């Protein structure tokens, strides 16, 4: 009994030593920041080039270059999505040619044409500079693999689309639909120049990204019918450039402001 007690206290002592020992062995003074500095280094022409990296890129670049550098058309003015409150020249251009080119394929396959095209401002990824236009331009503007879909929407959903555009206050590419903004309220809503009829069904061309819920364009989820065209927006752009000598943009306002 006594022996056991002694053993117990010894064990306690041992546990204490072990615990303390572990604490000591693990003790590590933390490293604390006394000074932090932050800088931004611009990657510019003045910097040298890493030749190893350059050699790795070279074969990839050459292959793409060959494929993309053929001049397809001429662009007389910079098309830029950052210039314009309710519409931009590049937005008008994209929506107009999407409507025009998708309608060509729709008619060819015996489908009814679309009356409206709505794309998204965020989907335009580059400026089209003044000068020669190549397939590369189409890749820069539309790097995504999105295709055009055509949705049948009731007139009430077209009204919801107008409300969305008013709330969003972004120059989303728009074609075939126009209205006037007066005191934060949309007036004279026209589809292909004819007043909107909320009971009618309209065919609307957009991207599969937006029809699947992208940018929260919820009115697209209420489509009565969906027709996949499998026509990539980028390929549509390339087809337009191939068929065009000089790019012409119709900058007629789709959303006008009445003071």
């Amino acid at each position, binding site marked *: 009994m006594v022996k056991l007690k002694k053993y117990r206290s010894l064990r306690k002592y041992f546990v204490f030593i072990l615990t303390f020992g572990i604490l*000591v*062995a693990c*003790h*590590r*003074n*933390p*490293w*604390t*920041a*006394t*000074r*932090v*500095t*932050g*800088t*931004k*280094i*611009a*990657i*510019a*022409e003045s*910097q*040298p*080039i*890493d*030749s*190893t*990296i*350059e050699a*790795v*890129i070279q074969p*990839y*670049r050459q*292959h*793409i270059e060959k*494929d*993309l550098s053929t001049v397809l058309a001429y662009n007389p003015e*910079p098309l*830029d999505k950052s210039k314009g409150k309710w519409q931009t020249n590049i937005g008008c251009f994209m929506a107009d040619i999407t409507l025009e080119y998708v309608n060509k394929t729709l008619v060819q396959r015996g489908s009814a044409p679309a009356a409206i095209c709505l794309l998204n401002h965020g989907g335009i*990824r580059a*400026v089209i*500079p003044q*000068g020669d236009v190549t397939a*590369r331009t189409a*890749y*820069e503007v539309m*790097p*995504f*693999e999105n295709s055009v879909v055509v949705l049948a929407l009731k007139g009430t959903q077209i009204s919801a689309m107008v409300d969305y555009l008013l709330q969003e206050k972004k120059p989303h590419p728009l074609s075939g639909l126009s209205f006037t903004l007066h005191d934060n309220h949309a007036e004279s809503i026209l589809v292909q120049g004819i007043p909107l009829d909320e009971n009618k069904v309209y065919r609307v061309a957009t991207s*599969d*990204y937006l029809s*699947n*819920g*992208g*940018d*929260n364009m919820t009115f697209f989820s209420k489509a009565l019918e969906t027709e996949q065209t499998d026509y990539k927006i980028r390929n549509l752009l390339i087809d337009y450039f191939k068929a065009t000598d000089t790019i012409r943009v119709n900058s007629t306002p789709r959303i006008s402001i009445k003071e």
Partner: protein
Amino acid sequence: MKRREFIKTTGAAGAYVGLGSLGLSSFTTAETKQITILHTNDVHSYIDPFPENHPKNPNKGGVARRAAVIKMIREENPNVLLVDAGDIFQGTPYFNYYGGELEFKLMNLMEYDVATIGNHDFDNGIDGLMTQLKKADFEMVSANYDLKNTVLDGLVSPYTLKIVDGVKIGIFGLGIALQGLVDVRNSKETKYLDPVEIATDTARLLRQEKKCDLVICLSHLGFNYPDDASKISDMLLAQKTENIDLIIGGHTHTFLDKPVVVSNRAGKKVLINQVGCYGLNLGRIDFYLTNDNQLAAKGTSIEIG
């Protein structure tokens, strides 16, 4: 090196045991360490510099130049951590032709350490990301994307620990809400979890249990959303959490002239930085650290240049 540190640590501990209340700091020689964090975000497959006739960024950017800059910095201070805050993919034909193969190959060559997943990294589907990730020498971290039921399970961790010159650094990743941004056909069964909750738990784990000296969050949430004050962003995340020292951000393509300093919910300073997009800039944050308690107690001075 490791052994020397061990001896130093046990020696100091021994002194502490022997002399008790005399304190530790007077018996250790104070050391200073410099950890350099280099970072990019939203590079979007921009591998070549912009063309000379580009209206906004003529002849700017380019991976070969960035690699040379990184190499020079490594020569000056080898204690570098190189990270990316997502959207590595999508933006130039390099991605359309090769699916991100070249982007990852170059990041391997530049010796990137860690990256997080941006929404566009799902653009070739989660399978496309998996294919490239298998070839990556760097680690991919995401704490708030639950990837258990996806092909990325096991390829992406919530966080990683790096020891740079004896300084323990915990790095975790945060991704943006997928709804309305990533087609579900691409993200498949990826589940988005609340970034504030996840960041709170992960940062606490890294700081308290993993004993990290520095905790870094690689975020693709976006810098801030002035038009939507409730939408989670790096600015909000910094204020609503604690235990994070630095947030490297992305998504909003925000060109910060200098890092922003915010007070977290415990009143401590958090740095937020984001360097625009397309590899036009390389961000650099230098932490000068001490293991001297008295020096550390004087607080941190932040110089933004």
